[in-house]
């Protein structure tokens, strides 16, 4: 299964090179590599509400969205986080990379809701510098 509109020819060719399979210690039984497989998969959860409520009692969370994505758009995730009724720490405000606005962030107790401006579904691919800054701040528990 190949997602529409995405160029995966380079990655697919590379991961199916015999020398690469050997270098990565890939088992003989493993089939040829494809980016997506149409597995018989059953979705159980229609919402992650209860799961978030439980894990946020112990863990910090970061929910980020490239804001031009329509597969999982930023509005839907914003509605979801708002529905958790977490205690708000800061108003929604721009965050920057250097002097450029990189998106918007709203801080709640134990969770940061971030948008990455102009990025699509794959943020680390479309906005790599912003993505690295964002995850670095999160891992180091900085604003």
């Amino acid at each position: 299964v190949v997602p529409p509109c995405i160029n995966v020819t380079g990655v697919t060719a590379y991961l199916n090179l015999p020398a690469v399979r050997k270098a990565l210690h890939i088992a003989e039984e493993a089939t040829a590599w494809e980016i997506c497989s149409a597995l018989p998969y059953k979705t159980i959860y229609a919402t992650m509400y209860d799961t978030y409520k439980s894990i946020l009692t112990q863990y910090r969370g970061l929910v980020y969205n490239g804001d031009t994505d329509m597969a999982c758009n930023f509005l839907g995730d914003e509605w979801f986080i708002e529905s958790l009724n977490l205690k708000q720490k800061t108003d929604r405000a721009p965050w920057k990379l250097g002097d450029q606005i990189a998106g918007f962030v709203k801080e709640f107790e134990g969770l940061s809701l971030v948008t990455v401006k102009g990025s699509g579904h794959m943020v680390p691919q479309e906005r790599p510098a912003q993505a690295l800054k964002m995850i670095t701040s999160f891992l180091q528990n900085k604003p």
Partner: protein
Amino acid sequence: AYAPDEVTNLPGLKTQPTFRHYSGYLNASGEDRLHYWFVESENDPANDPVVLWMNGGPGCSSMDGMLSELGPFHVNNDGQSLYMNEFSWNKVANVIFLEAPAGVGYSYNPSKEYATDDDKVSMGNYLALQSFFKKFPEYASNEFYVTGESYGGIYVPTLSLRILQGNATINMKGFAVGNGITNFTTNSDSLVYFAYYHGLIGLNLWKGLNDKCCDGTYCVFTESTDTGCLTLVRETLNIVYNIGLNTYSLYLDCYNGPSSVKSPLLTRYQFDMQHALGHLPTQPPKYYQPMSAILSKSKLG
């Protein structure tokens, strides 16, 4: 570290990296063998956090995350050579790319039993994590984060919950979800607003949606019981998904062009989405033709 899994000579690289990296298999549920690729931090592996990354789908490979998103090695279009990603997340963390569930990418099950679900996947990932820390015990006390994207919006929280409730000693600190599914209904309902405010649907259709799906203060789109409303919702989502827009990035070209959208090989997510909306009438009424039909009739660019 589990030395047999160390990758000492990765094809396509002019010079091998200064950091160590490992690729092999982790034990999971039953006979499942999940492929992982682990890159140590370029900074301070002994003290930097360990981050697990999972792409979504469901059914899509985290090698895409490694080789075209946050990983240190990116593939050139020739499909043979690599270049180093200067914004790789292993600048600040040790990163595990896990291909799950079995059947995805290089991960497999010898008897090809691939039917699975959200809970089986999270359990398999939890067991794979313990298998990882058996191979790399020196990382057991590092801070640990679960991260992922897209359908990873289900994978990440469900695995995090297992870690919270399980008895494996993992120094978990947090989780991150990128463009993730959090709630199917809000994901679709919000898309209707997104479509209108980005000019993908016009005022007529928007007014129709307000008339048929809203009561003046609140709108119910995909869960509406009004067939008129549902017809318009399908019209709206038809435009988003089926006329050749790049659903993953509105302003990027659609690689392979609009025809790739019509490809019968839809992603599982799109397949599921169509099921989530299965209760909708399949064809909108004549006067709400999809954009593609309108465009085909007129010379409008």
